[in-house]
């Protein structure tokens, strides 16, 4: 009898110990891997960047047949800047004649691992960023449609149970269907695992000043509480008959925090205290400034920042060079800000920088004011990108691949982020990725 009782108790106890714990995210167990860092900031250095003016540092030498080479991205890459025909800086006497001073004492190339020649098979902006975020080539994906396979935000939230305000997607605008990339239409994922999207130069720009800045501040208990009670009643009645609305799952506290953030940003903008880079004369740089504010306020686990001013290259090569130089300045400022202004993220953040695609080998025939030719993105040269990683546990001063030796693919980025945040096995087990290899697997 005693033995039977012992076996019974042992079985119950064993079952209790091995019983899976169901997280709010719907998964059974916490993520299985160890984190290399608690935060990832991924800068989609997007808009279409030619290898020739970035990694290869050929400036005007290659593109305009003018003998001036040099590095205009000296926060990210090692190399001396060009000395002749400077058009990429700020304006002193003539347009762009004064290069922006370097932000970082050590380049990201020296601090991290640099894949110099990476493949990107799709050469459209939306398809490219879609691939960066989903780890899948969306060959059947239409424009103006949400991704068909889950984004890295959804994997992170579903597989590790992260809150909505721990994942941010910050775009430099609302064009190019960019706001659609906060979550996919995949039946097992979707809105409830999406990221908080923000296009700050719209939210806090002229339209925002006019229509959002004057928003009323309701008292949380005395006004918002009864208001929400009535709304929930109305929504419950509606759910019995009507359709549900997509909801990214911010809790009431998180929503309150976002509203407070929006309010504070208008105040900081008026005070001139937004964390903009020293030079912030472009949409990309303003976006970086507001992204710094998001990092400081929310300390997100995953932040994706989308830049795209370099796309001006179609018709204005000088503007493209300026945008490239400013994007580098912005990335330098961002890394410096994380290390020096956000103690919770300092030394505990990995930054990844990669374009969504390159640009053509041959010009398109459109000349700008400097008689420089523009470049589109459609040929095989557009399939050439780079990938830079810097942060804890990542080899410093390591360069992999070269012009004649492609190593890595754009679809390796999503598993790389998963590996850094400790859920690579889980993301691989979904079977939804185009490649199970991260960039770490390629070193």
């Amino acid at each position, binding site marked *: 009898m005693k033995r039977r009782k012992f076996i019974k108790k042992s079985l119950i106890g064993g079952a209790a110990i091995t019983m899976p714990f169901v997280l709010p995210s719907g998964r059974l167990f916490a993520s299985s891997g160890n984190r290399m860092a608690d935060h990832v900031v991924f800068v989609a250095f997007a808009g279409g960047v030619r290898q020739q003016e970035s990694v290869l540092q050929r400036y005007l030498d290659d593109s305009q047949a003018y003998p001036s080479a040099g590095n205009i991205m000296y926060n990210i890459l090692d190399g001396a800047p060009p000395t002749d025909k400077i058009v990429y800086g700020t304006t002193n006497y003539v347009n762009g004649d004064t290069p922006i001073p370097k932000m970082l004492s050590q380049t990201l190339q020296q601090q991290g691992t640099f894949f110099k020649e990476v493949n990107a098979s799709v050469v459209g902006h939306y398809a490219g960023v879609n691939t960066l975020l989903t780890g899948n080539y969306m060959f059947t994906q239409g424009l103006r449609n949400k991704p068909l396979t889950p984004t890295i935000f959804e994997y992170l939230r579903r597989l590790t149970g992260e809150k909505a305000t721990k994942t941010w997607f910050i775009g430099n605008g609302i064009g190019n269907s960019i706001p659609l990339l906060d979550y996919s239409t995949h039946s097992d994922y979707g809105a409830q695992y999406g990221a908080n999207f923000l296009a700050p130069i719209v939210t806090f720009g002229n339209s925002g000043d006019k229509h959002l800045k004057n928003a009323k501040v309701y008292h949380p208990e005395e006004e918002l509480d009864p208001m929400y009670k*009535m709304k929930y009643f109305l929504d419950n009645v509606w759910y019995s008959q*009507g359709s549900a609305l997509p909801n990214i799952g*911010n809790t009431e506290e998180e929503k309150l925090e*976002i509203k407070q953030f929006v309010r504070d940003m208008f105040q900081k903008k008026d005070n001139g205290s937004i964390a903009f880079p020293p030079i912030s004369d472009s949409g990309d740089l303003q976006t970086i400034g507001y992204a710094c504010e998001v990092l400081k306020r929310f300390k997100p686990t995953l932040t994706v920042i989308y830049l795209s001013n370099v796309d001006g290259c179609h018709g204005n090569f000088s503007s493209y060079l300026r945008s490239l130089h400013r994007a580098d300045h912005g990335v330098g400022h961002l890394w410096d800000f994380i290390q020096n202004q956000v103690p919770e993220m300092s030394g505990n953040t990995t930054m990844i920088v990669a374009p969504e695609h390159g640009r053509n080998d041959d010009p398109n025939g459109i000349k700008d004011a400097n008689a420089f030719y523009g470049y589109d993105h459609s040929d095989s040269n557009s399939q050439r990108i780079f990938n830079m990683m810097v942060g804890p546990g990542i080899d410093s001063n390591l360069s992999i691949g070269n012009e004649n030796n492609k190593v890595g693919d754009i679809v390796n980025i999503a598993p790389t982020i998963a590996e850094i945040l400790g859920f690579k096995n889980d993301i691989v087990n979904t079977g939804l990725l185009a490649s199970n290899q991260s960039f770490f697997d390629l070193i």
Partner: protein
Amino acid sequence: MNMHIFRKFIFLISFLLIFACNKEEPVYELNQINSSSYNANKNKLKSTMQYISILYANLFQTALSSNELVEITNCIESIGDKEVAHEIVLSSFMNSQQVLIPSDSLMRSDLNHFIEETYKRFYVRDITEAERKFFIDFFESNPNVSSEMVYMAFALSNEYQFY
């Protein structure tokens, strides 16, 4: 002669039997009343532009200019959580002097009428008795609930997103 009178008598009796015993059938009639169906068959999600232009017309009783419509739509597109975005835009509307909502004293003077009209104004349908009971109880137990708060709740509710 007698036979003639007899025939007339038979004819009269037959006539009375045929037409006098016709039983009148009762007629049941219903008074016709106008009522919109519960949830009013709303199954299409409003676009951001539709939502904002309808909401603005509802609150200000005037049309929003096309420039402002584009600007407000862009503001909403720039914030991922649409509930948060709508709440910020709507609370900005409520800060305007031109917004047309009933005063709190008018609301409190006839709660039944207020909530009936609010359902018609926002949902274009009649209130159900269950809904009426909830709101009347809620208003009575929360004397500080204002007409603005009620309008905010309706404008932010999911049913208002559909048409």
